[in-house]
């Protein structure tokens, strides 16, 4: 039985999906997290606790571990573990993307620099430090612009500024976000800020699988809600895309060039691009698959999940098909209704009854602090739909969301704050 080292941060949404895929494939799993699991002592062959922030130290631990329990592949499930997966694979002599490629994909400044150097269109950008005076920096910034952290994902800390005053406010707000212990762990990257030109237009997300350097498109998602700021809360993803086929071809070609520019050759990629009458801009290409629970929308061949594809590729197993099912599908990452403490979510039965709705999953728990963007770090839940056309999928998602009622109490005073 093949043995897989799965890098699972304790805060990932992907645990059930990856463990379910491994089980379906008959793979033995060793779970590595940043904290020791309660059963680690009882089941030492099935758990590892690794320092995700110190890859070299983690690599030494894993090398010691495999001396008695060989590992056939290392898979990181999300943003926080992509670089570590490459470092560990390298240490074990297992095939994987180069460490420098995954590191570049994780760092928005490095990524843009490599993409621009290879002629891949990216927004105009500049690197700034929180040590710089934002008032002075504002004078040399063109507006509108977008202020971004180098490493956080899912639009956390991303703020649009249309003038100097907004710029100063945005930079100071981002600095506060990056002072949280979780973000500050990114070290020097948490002391820097990416300032880039705001690109108007529609945004799309491409989910792909790289196989020996060739990009295979798994899905191209439209994001029908405008993402114009001041914050960039992602809500609805629908595939197939309704863009003209010529635009879709360009998006695929641009994403393939972006992956090549970073040196990514194998494994999942998740790219986000802006499309307008002037052409395309690559906003991001990450060496990971789609986040949250969104992968539940995707089924391939005879019902393979995205996680099964990823594990099959990592383990060198045959991939029967990369063709997505024919029906249109979509997901809504439910927006945070307002800041406060979640009491309950009403209307779930009514939302599930909307034709085309597959599933409504509330992931926030009663008593959880709901924190909107740009500070927020979690979704209240997800709605999934499947229908004959993208239009029907989008309509079903909107109607199901309309039927949900979030009962939210006043935010806790800071002295009462609890962890999520």
């Amino acid at each position, binding site marked *: 039985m093949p043995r897989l080292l799965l890098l699972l941060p304790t*805060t990932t949404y992907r645990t059930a999906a990856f463990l379910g895929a491994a089980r379906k494939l008959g793979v033995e799993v060793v779970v590595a997290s940043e904290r020791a699991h*309660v059963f680690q002592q009882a*089941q030492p062959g099935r758990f590892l606790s690794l320092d995700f922030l110190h890859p070299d130290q983690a690599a030494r631990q894993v090398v010691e571990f495999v001396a008695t329990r060989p590992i056939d592949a290392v898979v990181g499930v999300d943003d926080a573990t992509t670089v570590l997966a490459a470092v560990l694979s390298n240490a074990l002599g297992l095939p994987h993307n180069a460490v420098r490629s995954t590191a570049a994909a994780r760092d928005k400044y490095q990524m843009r620099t490599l993409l621009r150097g290879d002629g891949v269109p990216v927004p105009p950008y500049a690197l700034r430090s929180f040590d710089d005076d934002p008032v002075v920096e504002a004078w040399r910034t063109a507006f509108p612009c977008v202020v971004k952290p180098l490493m*956080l994902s899912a639009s956390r800390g991303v703020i649009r500024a249309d003038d100097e005053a907004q710029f100063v406010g945005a930079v100071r707000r981002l600095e506060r976000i990056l002072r949280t212990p979780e*973000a500050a762990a990114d070290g020097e990257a948490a002391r820097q800020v990416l300032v880039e030109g705001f690109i108007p237009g529609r945004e799309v997300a491409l989910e792909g699988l790289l196989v020996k350097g060739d990009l295979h498109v798994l899905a191209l998602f439209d994001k029908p809600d405008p993402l114009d700021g001041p914050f960039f809360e992602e809500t609805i993803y629908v595939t197939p895309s309704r863009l003209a086929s010529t635009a879709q071809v360009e998006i695929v070609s641009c994403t393939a060039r972006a992956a090549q520019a970073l040196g990514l050759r194998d494994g999942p990629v998740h790219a986000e691009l802006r499309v307008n009458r002037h052409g395309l801009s690559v906003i991001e290409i990450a060496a990971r698959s789609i986040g949250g629970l969104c992968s539940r929308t995707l089924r391939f061949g005879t019902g393979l999940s995205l996680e099964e594809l990823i594990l099959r590729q990592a383990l060198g197993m045959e991939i029967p098909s990369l063709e997505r099912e024919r029906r249109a599908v979509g997901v809504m990452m439910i927006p945070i209704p307002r800041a406060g403490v979640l009491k309950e979510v009403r209307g779930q039965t009514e939302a599930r009854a909307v034709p085309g709705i597959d599933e409504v999953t509330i992931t926030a*728990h*009663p*008593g959880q602090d709901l924190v909107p963007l740009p500070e927020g770090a*979690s979704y209240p839940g997800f709605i999934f739909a499947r229908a004959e056309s993208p239009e029907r999928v989008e309509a079903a998602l909107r109607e199901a969301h309309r039927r949900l009622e979030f009962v939210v109490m006043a935010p806790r005073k800071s002295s009462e704050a609890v962890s*999520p």
Partner: protein
Amino acid sequence: MSDESVRSDGEQGEDSRIRAKIQDLLDTAINPAVAGHGGVVSLVDVKDKMVYLQMGGGCQGCGMVDVTLKQGIETMIREELPEVVEILDVTDHAAGQNPYSAASKK
């Protein structure tokens, strides 16, 4: 006629034996471990060698509950009781008010 009455004495006896062994595992190994994260696991039933468990406290709604169940609890049960057909979690995780780990975006 109830479901229970159509099952043979042998089947019921086998389930009773599994029930007793799992309760012992819960009391001596599983619950002392998950208590470290404020969790608790209860045996709801054993029927036709299918085991129904309920998770509470820090385990209810925890983002790592599948790891706890599949990598930890299930492995321990199967080592002792390889004849168990399936182990099912019947917890309403959405109602968990104090999960030990919650998912986030980073």
